């Protein structure tokens, strides 16, 4: 049988585009966390010092509040949020436990070099209820890391320091023979609950935060964080 002529016509390829790789990772993380039962909460990027620092137990004397770490705007009356934690503050002030929210978004620090950018993305989670403890936090972190890096992923919890959690931990995941820091977490500092109108005698909470660029760099093996923000089509085309 003779093949019809149309069969030999050249295909009319039409390229599809892609969402930004950082937003892809953000969406994946958000989907993962919402599948655990978290809701998504968002908040403003231009924040008050009260929500960005004071209510999170970061005192006026804390180094993070110095001009070399934080961008101040509007004649120092506001800041560009340095983390997405103020969204958690707003959520706690506006609702009663049980609270289970994740807040993904852009954050700003006064840094600009090969490993730090003045703007980057975080996703943070907060769960406040009765009888929430550090052992629960570990379970959640295992679930998150195993979902992201596979069930065989080895984790290491290290004590750390964040003013808004106590106890606080950093979590490393073993890649080859190297431990890489993946996230920070902890039991919500009772002072923060109190600042946000939640009785720390009745309720406790857990919180965690991941740097989205860090996860994206690991996932896609991108070595230079600045590549994400050059808007180079050759770069963006690789994330279809």
């Amino acid at each position: 049988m003779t093949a019809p002529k149309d069969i030999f016509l050249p295909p009319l390829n039409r390229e599809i585009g892609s969402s930004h790789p950082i937003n892809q990772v953000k969406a994946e993380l958000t989907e993962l966390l919402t599948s655990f039962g978290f809701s998504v909460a968002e908040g403003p990027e231009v924040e008050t010092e009260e929500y960005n620092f004071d209510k999170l137990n970061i005192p006026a004397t804390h180094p993070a509040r110095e001009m070399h770490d934080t961008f101040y705007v509007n004649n120092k009356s506001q800041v560009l949020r340095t983390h997405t934690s103020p969204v958690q503050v707003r959520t706690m002030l506006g609702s009663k436990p049980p609270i289970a929210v994740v807040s993904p978004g852009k954050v700003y620090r006064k840094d600009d070099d090969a490993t730090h950018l003045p703007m980057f993305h975080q996703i943070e989670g907060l769960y406040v209820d009765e009888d929430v403890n550090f052992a629960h936090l570990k379970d959640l972190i295992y679930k998150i890391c195993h979902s992201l890096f596979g069930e065989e992923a080895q984790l290491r919890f290290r004590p750390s320091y964040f003013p808004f959690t106590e106890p606080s931990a950093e979590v490393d995941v073993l890649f080859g023979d190297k431990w890489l820091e993946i996230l920070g977490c902890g039991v919500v500092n009772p002072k923060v609950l109190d600042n946000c109108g939640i009785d720390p005698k009745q309720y406790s909470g857990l919180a965690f935060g991941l740097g989205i660029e860090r996860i994206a760099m690991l996932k896609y093996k991108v070595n230079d964080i600045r590549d994400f923000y050059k808007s180079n089509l050759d770069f963006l085309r690789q994330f279809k």
Partner: protein
Amino acid sequence: MKIVYSHLLNLLEQQPKLEELSELLFQLGHEHEIDGEVLNMEITPNRGDCLSLKGLARDLNYFYQAKELPKSDMEMPALDLQFDNKAQELCPNISFMEIEIEKVPTKYKPYLESYFADLGINKNNFFTDISNYLAYESGQPTHCFDQSTMQGHFTLAKKELKTKFKTLLDTEIELTDENLVFSLDDEVISLAGTMGGASTACSANTTKVLVECAYFQPEEILGKARKYNLSSEAAYKFERGADYLCQEDVLRRFLHIVSEHTEIKTVAFYSEQNKTTLAEVPFDPNRLNAVVGINITEKEQLGYLSALGFVAGKNMTVPAHRSDVDQLNDLAEEVTRMIGYNNIPSQVLALPVMAKQNKRSIEDQVGRYLINQGCFEVINNPFTDFEGKDAIAVDNPLDKQRAMLRTCLMNSIRTNIAYNQNRQKDSIKFFEFSDIYKTSGTERRFALAVSGRVNKNAKEFNAQLDYGYLKGLVNSICTDIIKIQPTYELADKRGYDFYEALKLNGSKIGGLGKISKETIDSKIKTPVFACELTIGDLEVPDNSFIPISDFPASYRDLSFSLSNLDKVGILTELVNTTTENHDLLTESFIFDFFQNKKLNLLKLGFRFKFQAADKSLTDEEIDQIMDKLISDSMALDGISIEGL
């Protein structure tokens, strides 16, 4: 902070191997890298008490038993010091020790020698060398004044200053604003807690020294070294909180080290102690277990805490070096560190099921559509140089080019286009969703830009992305996703060759047009078409099912002749309105567009679909709608239908 493994072992009764010690330091939260015998420690900012051999040994006490190093028990008569502490709030505890030695030693004991050799630190002079070593060993900074230079009224005070100050490292700085300083008469001799001055510094010949040992409030020291661009280990330690009761012990240790090296002629001691009460934290073993999610006995908890220097009583008394502990959760962290975070068993966490809002996001829907059309999403940072009077200024920008926050997305998109045009990219389709920031508030914006080839295939390679392509994308977003028919209005806009404002339900939400080439920093002449819309108030309506009609559909085609291009919009609006107003007219679209400039011909073909849910339509019913449309269109200036 660098410490040497063997130096740390000198302060421990048990002698763990380096690997075991390293693992335990990680367990306790002291991250580090190992370089030979040197541990490069990253101590968390709340643990100023661990910035020394003694501090780390204290933290390891439960596991390896910390050793007390010998201190001098020499009798120290009172020092007749005319010292005026005018800043007791900022420096509540301060001690001085005056030592006179027979002669300056030429050789150091092995432990002191190895401090300099193993860490590659330069020696200075005898007393300063001991002071530096002692800061490494005990964590407490001390400062040595050459007693022969200490003539005048000696004060510590917070002063408003504008004066030059030469540090002991011979750098000259200008002190400005308020500073806590030691002075002799009016001369500043030391920037308290940060760095001493050259005029009273010890030298190789100093045989009589006045050693100062103090506790400064961290917030007073914070930022001073950075302000004056000084590298100060003392400031680093004071900023993170020092032991407020250690002064005499540290000075007795200082004296002991001196006595190991040379003969002491005289010694005298002066002390002011205003902060002496130890902090207390309410302690409840059950609540502590509840914070961590463990069930260990009170005895076990106390075993861990007492090894760290806490003293159990009605409340838990906090040792003077632990300024970071002020609540039960802090004690819980201490116990958890001792057990090891990795050794705490997980407890299954099941989040309560709560009602979720499953609103369809406009950004998801629009993004998905554009990606299918070959568009790539970009993310730009918000910093720019100037964006008009409504822009928010950054008070402490990275540089002049990033001193404001952007008030629109289009300038960033222009930069993205130029970046790629300059790199020979000939088909560019970008979009971005982002907040923009104005003094009047924040807005959520969407931007889209296209330039270059339509696609890379045999049919579309030579076709160029044009205004119609852009407008088609925007139109589809409005009609298919937001489900509102947009209207357009010609307008002037800076930075565009032509521009149409876009309205939804009568409200202007932005616009689209052809970007002026001179606003794009690229030599490529390919035109760029772009759109920016405010989308914060827009929602994707929920889909609701409309029963599908089993009755046949009828189609009508109509070809209009137009006198010029600006009639396209007018005619389209009429067709859209007619479609919206008649339930039986279920769909209408342009299926043909023909233009011949030479013959001055412009034709637009519309297809109309008619269908009813409950019956077959008659020709009369269809004609009634079509006739009205025809008569309405003929009434429009410059629009005709051939044969009518």
